[in-house]
């Protein structure tokens, strides 16, 4: 089993069985809050307050390439367009839609991806509003249209799901293996890749049978392409883009580059399923499966909800809570956001919501660094976390860059392992912001100087 250097093993705590029911849910308030922009450049609203919208109707888009339109996930009436709390604790414009009982549905026409032009296929992926469901919410059609001069050889389906607690991807791979394999085949067809790989961690061996079957089915349908299942050791952050290319095909993404530069496209398995549905059913990305878990949840569960459903609207019908909720996390415990309240909507990239108790979360204070070098040994990017923090504290940006500040993916492995409880990721985020501000200033100064000289 090939993998990446470093990595760590946070307790897995995956408490939902892969074959248990994925519960379809609706918000108790009968309202959804759909953010106008979910990944890519800012969208413009297409509907007004008072308009009736159908499930699947496009309600916001942008003319820019680097964007993904947003669709209504319910049949109802737009009541408001107002800023509302979203993941990240900021307020962004959201459509507030009241659900009615008409059940109007407005999907796209199904499209055969293997008998249409590449442009048509890409347009469909964009039109369906598909964005990376693994966490980054990156518009999918951008990844499928790699920069000029690159040649895609591999499509890697990311089924690592290396974050603790989360198990919605595993459930999807078990139930919808055929959809995922087909999404993989479609992506390979669009990008011209010769090999498709589904990569899972070895804690998900139970998926091997289903995935092998689905992949060999695709193999028999598309005889010129190769389909493979790869199993990598269970190690955080196996599902990071940089690590998964190394584990799946043994290639490193050059610093500051894209997977496309080494002939790879990486898509989350849930995204691939959404791509398959966009062609087969004409269904845009309007539903999201996610894990509801954590020590404060009575019964951890996987649910599928219309995008825009507020988590608070699922309490207590679908999420029964115990006493002692200390943190509400949108996403996984390693990279997710701690939210100030559960009143935030589920978005395209919400892979889980966790209610954690005091016993599970870290509340310890930062202490002095003793230089144990554990952060270096777990870093999947082979950078030197402790030395970056020391350089940043000494205000030495050049050194911080030399030690790898801008190569950090903020996976949190170093902060997880740190015995002195130093918030390394937070230091890096501040350092990165500082570097960007400094470079912007420099660029502005250079431009001003040039303008002066030009005169």
């Amino acid at each position: 089993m090939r993998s990446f250097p470093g990595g760590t093993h946070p307790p897995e705590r995956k408490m939902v069985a892969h074959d248990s029911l994925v519960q379809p849910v609706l918000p108790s308030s009968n309202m959804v809050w759909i953010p106008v922009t979910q990944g890519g450049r800012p969208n413009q609203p297409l509907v007004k307050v008072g308009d009736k919208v159908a499930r699947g109707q496009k309600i916001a888009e942008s003319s820019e390439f680097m964007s993904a339109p947003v669709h209504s996930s319910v049949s109802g009436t737009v009541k408001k367009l107002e800023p509302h709390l979203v993941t990240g604790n900021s307020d962004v414009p959201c459509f507030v839609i009241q659900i009615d009982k008409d059940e109007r549905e407005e999907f796209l026409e199904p499209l055969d991806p293997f008998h249409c032009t590449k442009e048509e296929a890409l347009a469909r992926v964009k039109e369906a509003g598909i964005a990376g469901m693994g966490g980054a919410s990156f518009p999918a059609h951008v990844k499928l249209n790699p920069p000029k001069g690159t040649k895609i050889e591999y499509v890697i389906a990311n089924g690592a799901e290396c974050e603790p607690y989360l198990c919605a991807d595993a459930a999807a791979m078990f139930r919808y293996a055929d959809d995922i394999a087909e999404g993989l085949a479609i992506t390979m067809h669009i990008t011209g890749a010769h090999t498709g790989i589904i990569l899972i961690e070895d804690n998900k061996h139970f998926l091997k049978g289903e995935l092998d079957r689905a992949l060999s089915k695709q193999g028999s349908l598309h005889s010129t392409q190769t389909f493979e299942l790869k199993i990598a050791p269970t190690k955080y952050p196996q599902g990071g883009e940089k690590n998964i290319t190394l584990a799946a095909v043994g290639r490193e993404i050059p610093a500051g580059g894209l997977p496309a530069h080494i002939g790879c496209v990486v898509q989350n398995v849930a995204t691939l399923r959404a791509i398959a549905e966009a062609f087969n059913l004409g269904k845009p990305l309007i539903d999201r499966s996610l894990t509801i878990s954590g020590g404060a949840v009575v019964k951890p569960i996987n649910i599928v909800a219309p995008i825009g459903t507020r988590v608070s609207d699922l309490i207590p019908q679908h999420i029964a809570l115990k006493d002692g909720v200390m943190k509400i996390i949108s996403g996984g415990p390693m990279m997710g956001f701690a939210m100030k309240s559960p009143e935030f909507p589920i978005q395209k990239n919400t892979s889980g919501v966790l209610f954690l108790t005091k016993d599970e979360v870290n509340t310890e204070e930062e202490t002095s660094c003793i230089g144990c070098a554990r952060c270096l040994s777990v870093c999947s990017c082979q950078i030197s976390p402790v030395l970056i923090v020391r350089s940043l504290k000494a205000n030495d940006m050049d050194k911080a860059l030399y030690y790898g500040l801008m190569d950090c993916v903020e996976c949190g492995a170093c902060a997880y392992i740190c015995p002195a409880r130093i918030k390394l990721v937070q230091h890096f985020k501040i350092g990165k912001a500082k570097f960007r501000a400094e470079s912007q200033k420099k660029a502005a100064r250079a431009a001003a100087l040039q303008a002066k000289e030009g005169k």
Partner: protein
Amino acid sequence: MMSEEIKQANTVEAKPAGVQPAEVKPAEVKPAEVKPAETKPKKTQKKSDENEIFISPAPHVISPIKTQNLMQNVLLALLPVTVYSVYLYSMAGAVRIVLSIVTAVVSEILFRRILKRDVRIKDFSAVITGLLFALVIPPVLPLWMVILGSAFAVIVGKEFFGGLGSNPFNPALVGRAFLLASFTKPMSGWVGIHSTGMNIVPWTKSAEAVVDSIGSATPLFYANPNTEGVMATLDIAKSLGFDSSFELYTHLFLGQRGGSIGESSIALILIGFLYLLVKRVIDWRTPVAMITTTVLLTTLAGVDPLISLMSGGLVFGAVFMATDYVTSPVTPMGKIFFGIGCGLITAIIRLYSALPEGVMFSILVMNTVVPFLDRIIPRKYGFVKKKKPPKEKAK
């Protein structure tokens, strides 16, 4: 500035605006809510932390291993050596070990109290400094010197620089170097094992009496080319009263020899080393590089490699001193060069200086170059070595 921002981010606390987790649980009404809490609403809220939702940056889970756990593991690894040294030197050893630890802990507490800093005694760092210091001094060092050295180690070696994590030099070795420079004779007062009996040997005079009567030469003394030229192993063995070289080796390995309180038994030090490796507390690189370099170089100079390895404080220093987190490099290659540097200086001192042992000075000298060694970093992800451009042909 940066730490302030972080503190802010950590202490932000927000009550859920709408649905409160405490309300949704199907349990009965809480006593806190039944109480007429209007008089002191804030206090009751603080008592029950159920309604408090914390916000902080990711990651939200953290490994159970804290600084204390690492330090406890080091103490455990030192336990066999410590127990054995009490067996070797009886009360004299035990008293010095306890005295040194107590002095280290008390002086750290006092220093930080006086300077109104937080007392961090819970991290076990002072205990380790005290114990390490005790293990590298002679078993009959006058007690007041033990106190002086241990306090010097903690206060000057560590706290003057800002405490744990900020000291550039290994504190225990700073204490030892101070004593060696100030009181050279008592610091070289070696006694034979089991020679002290129940006598604590508290002061200089009593120590002199003991040393005079039972002073013993170490193999390292004979192995030093400066003294009488390098002797053959068998001759060394014979002059120390052994019948064969093999017998000398076993005695050295098992620790049937005098020296600093804790450095005698190579076997027990290696057990501690293995424990620290298995528990992943320390890295193998520095000790292995240091020992290899010293043994290799002294062998080239004609010293028996096994004697070189097993005499003096080489193994003890390499395992417990050169691996001190704070004062050694963090990068893998930095650790190797640190070890090589320590080994090199140890060998040079052993071969060419009037001092019989060089482990302490080698580590202290190498401590100064740690920031430079930390510049040797691993290849970062995504930085593939560029192929050398084909050389342009000269005319």
